[in-house]
């Protein structure tokens, strides 16, 4: 029995009167079939699978693979925090990532829903709507870079685009290598921080995509202390005082009011990197993202470091406004 037939049957069984069921059947045949879901096709003319991605990193990777999701969680937030590649304007917003709208999902004629194990509590109910694929980068063993590659391949396989995954991986590796060549070989270790408020920063270290990208570029990370499961440590700024001289990379967005307060912060002014003027600013990168985030970080860091670093930091803050350029 076809999907639509089954739905109508369920409707009848659920006690909807015969006439309403008839009206309903016609309505579905008219509406759902044509008007609602204009089928998308890729360049070769093959029909694209209709995928809903709850997680931003997966929405990003799917877009990069050429299978943009028809629906994603918190699309507005995606455009602010992940940014590139942009989501299709027609992408449906599903609401909170922790609570994607089930009613809406069930009306979208999906072929696949992708999640991470962060959303495992919804998995069984999502499976009633469409096949669910759960793919992790962080909540599994192994290093982040190989997990990201594996996740890209699994995602591509699930949407039947394995070749695209290999192209994306080759492209990413190639671009990162190119960027790495532009960077001075004896660049000191990088300390990548993101301000939470004027006294606390996230420092990216072990088990983060940022750290993995730094390693791929042949650079080293100044933060060798432990990190949380998500690859960052959340520390007060005095913890940075005892880190050996490094280039401090301040990743945006900087919360309002922080810069003014740093001017009065004796500790901040006394940090080795700040004293030596070795601070560069880059716009934000979605640190839980996929390969596009890695490429983006590599490009931003290369541009920041190959500019005259000292002149940049004397000019003061550069990229606090929007996290995404």
């Amino acid at each position, binding site marked *: 029995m076809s999907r639509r037939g089954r739905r109508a049957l369920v409707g009848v069984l659920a006690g909807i009167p015969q006439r309403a069921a008839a009206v309903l059947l016609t309505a579905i045949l008219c509406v759902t079939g044509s008007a609602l879901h204009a089928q998308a096709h890729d360049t070769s003319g093959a029909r694209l699978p209709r995928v809903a991605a709850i997680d931003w990193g997966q929405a990003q990777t799917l877009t990069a693979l050429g299978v943009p999701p028809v629906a994603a969680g918190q699309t507005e937030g995606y455009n602010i925090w992940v940014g590139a590649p942009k989501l299709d304007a027609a992408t449906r917003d599903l609401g909170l990532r922790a609570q994607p*709208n089930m009613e*809406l999902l069930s009306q979208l004629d999906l072929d696949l829903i992708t999640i991470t*194990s*962060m959303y495992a*509590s919804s998995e069984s109910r999502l499976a009633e709507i469409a096949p669910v694929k759960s793919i992790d980068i962080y909540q599994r063993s192994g290093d982040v870079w190989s997990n990201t590659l594996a996740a890209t391949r699994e995602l591509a396989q699930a949407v039947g685009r394995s070749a695209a995954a290999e192209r994306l991986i080759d492209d990413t590796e190639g671009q990162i290598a190119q960027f790495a060549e532009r960077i001075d070989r004896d660049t000191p270790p990088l300390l990548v921080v993101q301000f939470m408020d004027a006294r606390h920063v996230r420092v990216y270290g072990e088990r983060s995509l940022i750290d993995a990208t730094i390693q791929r570029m042949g650079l080293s990370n100044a933060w060798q*202390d432990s990190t949380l499961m998500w690859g960052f440590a959340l*520390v007060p700024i005095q913890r940075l005082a005892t880190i050996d001289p490094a280039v401090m990379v301040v990743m945006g967005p900087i919360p309002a009011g922080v810069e003014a307060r740093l001017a009065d912060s004796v500790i901040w002014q006394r940090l080795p990197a700040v004293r030596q003027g070795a601070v560069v600013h880059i716009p934000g990168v979605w640190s839980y993202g996929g390969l596009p985030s890695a490429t983006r970080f590599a490009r931003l860091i290369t541009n920041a470091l190959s500019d005259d670093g000292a002149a940049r930091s004397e000019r003061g803050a550069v990229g606090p406004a929007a996290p995404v350029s």
Partner: protein
Amino acid sequence: MTPGRLCALLALPLCILVSYTLIHTGHGLGLHAMLFGDSIDAVLIRYSWAPGLAVALIGGAGLGLAGVLLQQTLRNPLASPTTLGVASGAQLAMLSATLFAPSLLVWSRGGVAFAGGALALALVFALAWRRRLAPTVLVLAGMVVNLYFGTLSLALILFNQERLAGMMIWGAGSLTQDNWSGVVYLLPRLAAGLVGAWLLSRALALLDLDEVNARNLGVSLFYLRLASLGLAVFLAVCVVARLGNIGFIGLAAPAIVRIAGARTFKARLLWAPVFGGLLLAIADQGLSVFVGDSPMLVPTGAVTAALGAPLLLWLIPRLSMVRSAPTGGTIDVPARRRSPGRFIAVVAAATVVMAGIGLLAGQGATGWHWPWSLPWSEAGAWRLPRVMAAGAAGMMLALAGTIIQRLSGNPLASPEVLGISAGAGLGLLGLLLFSSSASTGLSLTAGTLGALATLGLLIAINARSGFEPERLLLTGISVMFLFTAVQQIVMAGGDPRVQGALAWILGSTYSVSLPRALVVCAVAAAMIAVTRPFAAWLDLLPLGSATARALGMDVNRSRLLLLLMVSVLTAGATLIVGPLSFVGLLAPHLARILGLTRAREQMAGSIVLGALLMIGADWLGRELIFPAELPSGMVATLLGGSYFMWRLRRL
């Protein structure tokens, strides 16, 4: 044990911690190098460690002082700076400013927090003004404002987790300092507060007498309350603005010095600030020595509350030596409705209509659509369990609230205040912290275990005192403190899984499946049937245990039995809609305000009101900002809270 000795006892470990840090971090820097040197270690000690210590002492003292003033003025040993909604007002202001007017934060962070706290207090005062700031009304108003603002804050965080990360660190109370500006800001304000308290102390001490006597001695209660509350709140809001949410010290410090023997108000006025300062400083120093190099931020304020909650639990059995002053006059309610049955039937009919709307009306991929234009499997099948669960949870919470309010004779009591919900919440947050992924079954188990553990704790601590209501509530409040603290620590940590936990905490029927909804409905129906015969007890218990006993009741056993029922009801509802849906507080009150004064009427009335409120809230939550959802518990709190405030003002 005298308060002086207690403080000396606390000062000792503080000295050890301080000398350890100086020796360890200082690497044997001489005193001169420490004071004037330019090495990074000397700078850290001079501009981070020393101001941090000073700020902890000053902040703790300020909160301790504020707590003493509030507890004396409100004649309530459970009052704290958070009672009047000050901290939640400050927090809501900071969060809104971050999202909607960041330039205000550039201008002055402290100013924004101060304005928010003052606004919350103004609202509380406005609500209690007609009753000349009577303590009961003030505390009730403060609680509703707290709930209201707290819920709004959590909602903002739910939808803007990334942008509000920094504010969550503030909310958890991190004392990190990077120069002396915090000390310069707080010290003169504390001094002013001390002077003010000293000036008021003679008049305030008279409040130990009852109201009539105090008035006969020529005290203008109204102006005295205004001055004392104003002073306490000023102190609290200064500390909160600068250091974040550290409400616990304001509750614990006065309570502990009181138990340690500070019987008179003046003694408490002296020792509570000393004790509060020492307590906060020890917590801060201890944390930086023991977990200073962890990758996770360990915020002092929240950790103090988390560690302090067990301390409070330990103290409860020792509270018997303290007879707290009577809280003074209950709120009078409108006369009994003449035909309660008809009124209840009308509300029940409204509930059925609302359930129909909740099932049939809604938005989909093409906007609003007719109920028959979509197959059942694409709309109704998703709505049915939610409507059922919302209704059942609303009924259970309302019933539990009615029982606990009558059992304790305390209008502030609610199932949430008993700590059972918080216990379930703790179980869930613990699971989130220690397991990488959680299935529904596992979270249910963790939540149930948490609720059961809390119940066990309640019984273990209170069995000997015969489940005296005031102690029961104090036990519950300790568990709530623990839960709030753990929640703040988790949120400050920036874990991306916070969103899911937060949605549940705010009370959402999102994850209810049909089998679970059926189970909850069955439990609700069974419990309603079980509790019905106990209405007679509930008519007697509010008259006081002496009266009840004289009328032939076994008060202890009936309290235990009722407590068990409340626990089952609360645990069942919490697992569905989370620990923060304050239907259990609001529905019984609404029933009472609407004239359902006898136990049986109030029970029936609040059950239907609870169901109506939750089903309505669930539907609104689903449709208001479709496709995103507002948690139903949150909508219920905002709806019920608005109505409640409006009624309260007209009391």
